[in-house]
């Protein structure tokens, strides 16, 4: 192998000037990264207006999801609601029913927290076995951002709400679907945020600009976007989204409801079907994400043989509560086929279950809350595929 012309020859970029400042006042990723985008699966839903797409988690690292590629889920399309037109009402069992403008919201003391938001249907296709070949599609209904917002309890207090533990907070959005959900008072007083910034900038339209609800550790459907109303009620409203949807049907036909928490889960993002091993044998970084709606991730184990032997992975940094944790297994690939799996543990001692454990407990019709251990078969050429194992 001779000398590399990229080094020995003068290159254009080392000779001519590049573009000036302000070429793109709000920047986009460089063109070489243009394939790193959200993607939908057209046949999953009747219309892209009431649909979902997937975060390209295979191509990201660290834990923070850039807003521009964070998955979208709309029930009646994303709406353009300006700060001037934004109104937030709080009513019901309160002493003072109030209306806030956007400016009002920014006058309350605020906090910053990193949280993951996972759709309850993430990995839902896999109940019926290995379906879509790509971690973007099996696990991409998730994002993780740093939110700036006002604690919901502050607004409840402002209105003089009845905060006794048997009360509920019903929240709805300003879009045509309104997507109403009921939240028990205990959670509303705990860590729920009325958020207006994500990763330092204003929320994107598709994530609920100008104001959305953040319900840490709980299913994404409750994170109401374009928030317009908070009502204190004496029972759950039993809206369409909490009865006909987001309930989990067992094998015997009964269904489980109020399954709000997202249990501990992890997945290897690379290697994975969209991220084959291209460098051959030798040093290999196995990388992935772990999260739990119950708190911190304390440990992630990785198996290369389908669960016979496990090694404990290295965490990128100490896990934040109810936020994505990055893990790495720095290994040496000998070119032999692998069955890659990851298994997360959280601070409650919960261990991520296998597909068989979940199915034995719930059957295969649950749709939602599939937090099973995922398997990638990596062949001798480094190509990975979504599989199920015995």
């Amino acid at each position, binding site marked *: 192998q001779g000398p590399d012309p990229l080094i020995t020859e003068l290159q254009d970029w080392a000779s001519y000037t590049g573009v000036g400042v302000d070429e793109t006042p709000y920047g986009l990723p460089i063109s070489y990264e243009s394939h790193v985008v959200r993607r939908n699966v057209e046949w999953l839903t009747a219309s892209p*207006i009431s649909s979902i797409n997937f975060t390209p988690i295979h191509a990201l690292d660290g834990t923070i999801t850039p807003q521009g590629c964070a998955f979208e889920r709309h029930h009646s399309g994303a709406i353009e609601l300006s700060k001037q037109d934004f109104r937030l009402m709080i009513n019901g069992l309160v002493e003072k029913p109030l209306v806030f403008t956007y400016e009002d919201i920014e006058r309350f003391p605020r906090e910053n927290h990193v949280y993951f938001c996972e759709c309850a249907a993430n990995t839902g296709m896999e109940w019926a076995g290995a379906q879509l070949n790509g971690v973007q599609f099996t696990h991409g209904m998730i994002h993780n951002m740093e939110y700036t917002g006002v604690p919901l309890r502050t607004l409840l207090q*402002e209105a003089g709400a009845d905060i006794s533990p048997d009360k509920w907070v019903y929240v709805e959005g300003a879009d045509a679907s309104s997507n109403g959900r009921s939240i028990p008072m205990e959670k509303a007083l705990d860590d729920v945020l009325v958020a207006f910034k994500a990763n330092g900038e204003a929320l994107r339209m598709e994530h609920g600009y100008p104001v959305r609800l953040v319900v840490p550790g709980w299913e994404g459907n409750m994170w109401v976007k374009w928030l317009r109303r908070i009502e204190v009620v004496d029972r759950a409203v039993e809206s369409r989204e909490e009865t006909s949807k987001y309930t989990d049907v067992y094998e015997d036909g009964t269904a489980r409801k109020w399954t709000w928490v997202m249990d501990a889960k992890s997945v290897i993002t690379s290697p994975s079907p969209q*991220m084959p091993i291209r460098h051959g044998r030798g040093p290999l970084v196995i990388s992935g994400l772990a999260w739990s709606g119950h708190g911190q991730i304390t440990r992630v184990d990785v198996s290369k043989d389908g*669960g016979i032997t496990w090694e404990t992975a290295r965490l990128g940094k100490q896990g934040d509560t109810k936020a994505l944790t990055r893990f790495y297994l720095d290994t040496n690939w000998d070119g032999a*086929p692998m069955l890659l799996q990851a298994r997360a543990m959280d601070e409650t001692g919960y261990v991520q279950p296998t597909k068989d454990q979940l199915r034995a407990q719930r059957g295969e019709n649950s749709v939602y809350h599939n937090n099973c251990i995922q398997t990638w078969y990596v062949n001798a050429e480094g190509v990975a595929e979504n599989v199920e194992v015995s």
Partner: protein
Amino acid sequence: ADRAAALELQIAKVQAAAKERMASAMNLTAPAPSVEDGFGIGRAAHPEEIAAWDVDVLPDGRGLPEGSGNAYDGEEIFADRCASCHGDFAEGVDNWPVLAGGFDTLADEDPVKTVGSYWPYLSTAYDYIYRSMPFGEAGTLTPDETYAIVAYILYSNDLIDDDYELSHENLGQFEMYNKDGFVLDDRPELEYAQWRAEPCMENCKDEVEITMRSVFLVETPPEGGSNSVMNHATTDGLPTFSAEGPSFIPAAAVKPQEEASGEPDVEEPVAAVAADGGGELVAAGEKVFKKCKACHQVGAGATNKSGPQLNGLIGRTMGSADGFNYSKVFTAAMEEDRVWDEAALAEFLARPKSYMKGTKMAFSGLKKDADIVAITEYLKSAGE
């Protein structure tokens, strides 16, 4: 090895120093402060404002507005406002929700979860339909229309007769078929208790084999979206695994038919060609078209949805989109060779139901002439 040890020592030193600085510093983070009587931010909500937004209905019927309706009246309203997606008999069109039937399927492999077979409370149907339906025209139904639609859905599920008068007085007491079909989240007792054991690390299984391969391979084209294609590969010829590793290393591993690409060829982004003149009008029309997007597509790759695709609409024979199941009035128009021109489209868009009596299109029409002009320009430019 010496160098590595020295490096580690150096790192340890730096980290210890940083830790000491951290420990000696005050932790100034704190939760957002609260004030006993509130901050005095916001204004009192007017009763009219609360009435306008607080329309949710509780399972016991609280929150229902006065009114009534029956399935006999509901059938017509449903055909007019709901059937383009949900079907004339609430059976669902394409992927849109089926609202009727499915009784005793909840324990089957693919349960059919309808209002009749699955929903535990009737209040949910009223609440959702009144607030969020019809899709693309939410909030336009009157209470009486809503009662009638709910009654028609019950009738489609054989739960009432067509003369049953559903109203604010009896809706809250109506007992749904699956009212006892739900249990509260019992994962803590059934799952967490048994899944908190220290996990196995070695020799956890004797042998592992691949039992299923991905049903779909997914192509990820550079322009976005995805194409899933069937994976025809079988599990034949794949290695099994034991503690010693894979049973064999395939000489030439079977490649999936289409390797999902991590580095697709990056194509030069196509610069959007701005139309001269008319550009603003087209842009305005694109915005207006949002009202139609729930049912109609236009432009490259447009296909029929619950409404026909609109490519080349001006100059096209009415009722002529291939493969679309038109209402009678449009089939008749096609047989008469009537053609969409700008005048016809303007009249239709202003009052669809009076211009095309019997159309299945649920949309009630565009009120502003400017919107009609803009959307016509947009359709002309996007659907060439």
